[in-house]
């Protein structure tokens, strides 16, 4: 006999130091030991400074003469390129994967140029799903794309149709962080206008870009609000270090001055770096795991369970609750089995009924024809008997007639004989 856990939790106050407050430290230690992974995808037309930004973000030459960035290679089609680097800082190890999409938006006809990107993201989800569903599971590497930086060209006017199309197709598969590239080509006022326009268009098209989560902390919320006001972030990247006021900074040297990458008044690069790396990296991973991946997974499993494409067509990412979505595919099979058993029972009953009925019919028919034949037989019998009787009657009559006539004849004969005898006698008498 066991009890199941279905009771409410009671609040208890501790009367002294217990020690489980140390749990977070234990978690900290273990996570450092395990190391971290992060996959960042950069999407945008060639020449928007994607590789430069990556180098600036991670303060390292990810793309260098030995490992040239995608922009330095000649491509004819959209590619998806992945490059893994291991970086360490303060005892924390990070396996960073950068996914680049050279050729995106560069062709004359860019229809479906987002498809390779979607396919890549889906294939990573699929890999994770398969390794999660194995019978023997080991440490599962997380290669899912956690964040997608989308580079918007600094036209100053608004989003291009390609931008809108891409974001609409990917906002439910990956966290999208839209960035305005090469922000040093716009004045602050132009930038403000541009940002407003972009956000308007994003809202208009119902595009869901990555949202910063609300926290209980007042201070943090203030910071988050400030970031939200400056979306999309306008960034500048640089591979060169310039000396400004005796300080070594990353920047772009112009005849009229230096645009500093890490200067908050020049661009939003610092905000991006802080948000992406220092405060929200974990959240990006969590949202990928809890929302985007789960969407993919439930869609995939629902399709498998119903064994058809129909299911995929009808259901969108977040669908209304259905009995099937509350169960695992196996539980679903159980349910189907039960349904089938009920169906079979019903079928059996129906067949039995039909069968009984037909049998009854046939037996009834048989009985009817038996009766009919019996009746006919009776009739014939009666007929024959009647005929017999008739015949008998005739015979009797005939016999009677015969007897009467014969006796009459005999009488007549007798009479005749008598008469002839008398005559004879008379004759004899006469003679004498």
């Amino acid at each position: 006999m066991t009890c199941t856990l279905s009771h409410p939790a009671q609040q208890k106050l501790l009367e002294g130091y217990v020690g489980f407050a140390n749990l977070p430290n234990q978690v900290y230690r273990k996570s450092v030991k395990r190391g971290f992974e992060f996959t960042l995808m950069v999407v945008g037309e060639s020449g928007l400074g994607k590789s430069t930004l990556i180098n600036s973000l991670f303060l390292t030459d990810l793309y260098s003469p030995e490992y040239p960035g995608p922009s330095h290679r000649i491509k004819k089609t959209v590619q998806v390129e992945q490059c893994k680097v291991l970086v360490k800082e303060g005892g924390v190890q990070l396996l960073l994967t950068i996914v680049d999409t050279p050729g995106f938006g560069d062709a004359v006809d860019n229809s479906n140029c987002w498809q390779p990107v979607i396919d890549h993201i889906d294939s990573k989800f699929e890999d994770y799903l398969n390794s999660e569903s194995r019978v023997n599971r080991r440490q599962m590497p997380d290669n899912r794309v956690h964040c997608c930086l989308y580079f918007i060209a600094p036209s100053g006017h608004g989003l291009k149709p390609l931008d809108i199309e891409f974001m609409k197709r990917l906002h439910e598969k990956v966290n999208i962080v839209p960035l305005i590239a090469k922000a040093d080509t716009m004045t602050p006022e132009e930038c403000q206008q541009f940002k407003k326009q972009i956000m308007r268009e994003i809202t208009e098209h119902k595009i869901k870009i990555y949202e910063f989560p609300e926290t209980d902390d007042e201070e943090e919320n203030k910071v988050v609000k400030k970031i939200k006001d400056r979306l999309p972030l306008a960034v500048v990247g640089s591979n060169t270090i310039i000396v400004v006021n005796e300080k070594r900074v990353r920047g772009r040297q112009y005849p009229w001055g230096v645009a500093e990458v890490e200067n908050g008044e020049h661009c939003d690069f610092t905000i991006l770096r802080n948000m992406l790396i220092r405060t929200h990296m974990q959240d990006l991973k969590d949202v990928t795991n809890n929302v985007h991946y789960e969407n993919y997974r439930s869609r995939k499993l629902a399709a498998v369970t119903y064994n058809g494409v129909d299911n995929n067509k009808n259901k969108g990412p977040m669908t209304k609750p259905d009995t099937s979505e509350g169960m695992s595919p196996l539980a679903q099979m159980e349910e189907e089995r039960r349904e089938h058993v009920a169906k079979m029972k019903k079928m059996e009953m129906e067949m039995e009924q039909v069968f009984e009925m037909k049998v009854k019919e046939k037996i009834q028919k048989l009985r009817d024809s038996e009766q009919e034949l019996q009746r006919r037989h009776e009739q014939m019998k009666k007929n024959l008997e009647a005929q017999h009787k008739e015949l008998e009657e005739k015979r009797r009559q005939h016999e009677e007639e015969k007897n009467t006539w014969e006796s009459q004849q005999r009488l007549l004969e007798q009479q005749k004989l008598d008469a002839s005898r008398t005559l004879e006698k008379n004759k004899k008498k006469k003679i004498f």
Partner: protein
Amino acid sequence: MAATDVDTFVNDVTRSLELGGHVGFDSLPDQLVSKSVTQGFCFNILCVGETGIGKSTLMNTLFNTLFEDEEASHYQNGVYLRPKTYDLKESNVQLKLTVVDTVGFGDQINKDESYKPIVDYIDNQFETYLQEEMKIKRSLYNYHDTRIHICLYFIAPTGHSLKSLDLVTMKKLDSKVNIIPIIAKADTISKSELHKFKIKIMSELVSNGVQIYQFPTEDEAVTEINSSMNAHLPFAVVGSLEEVKVGNKMVKARLYPWGTVQVENESHCDFVKLREMLLRVNMEDLREQTHARHYELYRRCKLEEMGFKDTDPDSQPFSLQETYEAKRKEFLGDLQHKEEEMRQMFVNKVKETEAELKEKERELHERFEQLKRMHQEEKRNLEEKRRDLEEEMNAFNRRKVAAETLMGQSMQGSSQQIRKDKEKKN
């Protein structure tokens, strides 16, 4: 040329790079920790031991709080598990603690099945988690994890050796849960007896192949303390919430005429060691082991039982889709087969009955054929008789006619004669 052709170039070589400055991802562990703290933690303790051995008291002492509990009686029919959940908070850490008590353990006369409810309970928690994990729409990140993270096995302080019930139960549990054996009511054993007792217990566990939980020694931060604690197993504990004045402090203790046993005095008992190991140092490892080892083992066995495999006979790895599809095909085939069977059965039944009825029909016809023949014969008889009669009648009629003709003649003759005679007379 449309930009749809894909050329995926994957650079699988992982390079190590030096950073040119402070990037800032060293805050990742902090980000992770702050998220977990916001979410809160779950911890589930299972206490296995005889009635009255001090399980509830130890829990109270360990968590410095009075968990309301009525005393259990000795007259339970069987063993049943009583889980109770509490929400605790210490500084900013929220802990959802579930304490599962085994009521009635060791009280029955026949203790053969005593371990069963415990094993079933542990398996049920695994099963619930597995079901949630396999759902199509699942929410694992706010799932209340009820899997048992630690089983404290209370050994009675006999001073001699383990009871057979202890060995049997621990053997059944060691592959399903982390076990820490503890000697209860340790204030009834003297130091030298205790030392011998501990050695005896550990050797019995080893010789019976019981796997108890070993404090992990890979992490340099805790290697030293863990390995030294491993040597002190099983912990001899004393529990008490009563406070006694010792010196100028109030300490938790048990007051005896011959002295005071202080719970938190390390030379009196191992309570502090237990608390240290269980709560302050290895709590996270216990949770991890439960998830990564015990749960995975359960899951693997369950899936294999259901026929899932990772590779097909040609050692090609199955994708999840393939596995489910294969299962589904099998399942549908099975259902179809059943349907076919039933149909077939009916077809046979129908055939049988048809044959029967046909037979009956045939008999009926035969019967009536027979009757018909009888009728025909009778009819013929009748016909014959009729003809006979007719012949007779004809014969008779002829006779009659003949006779009448004769009579007519003779009448004529006789009348002639009479006339003649009359004439003669005249």
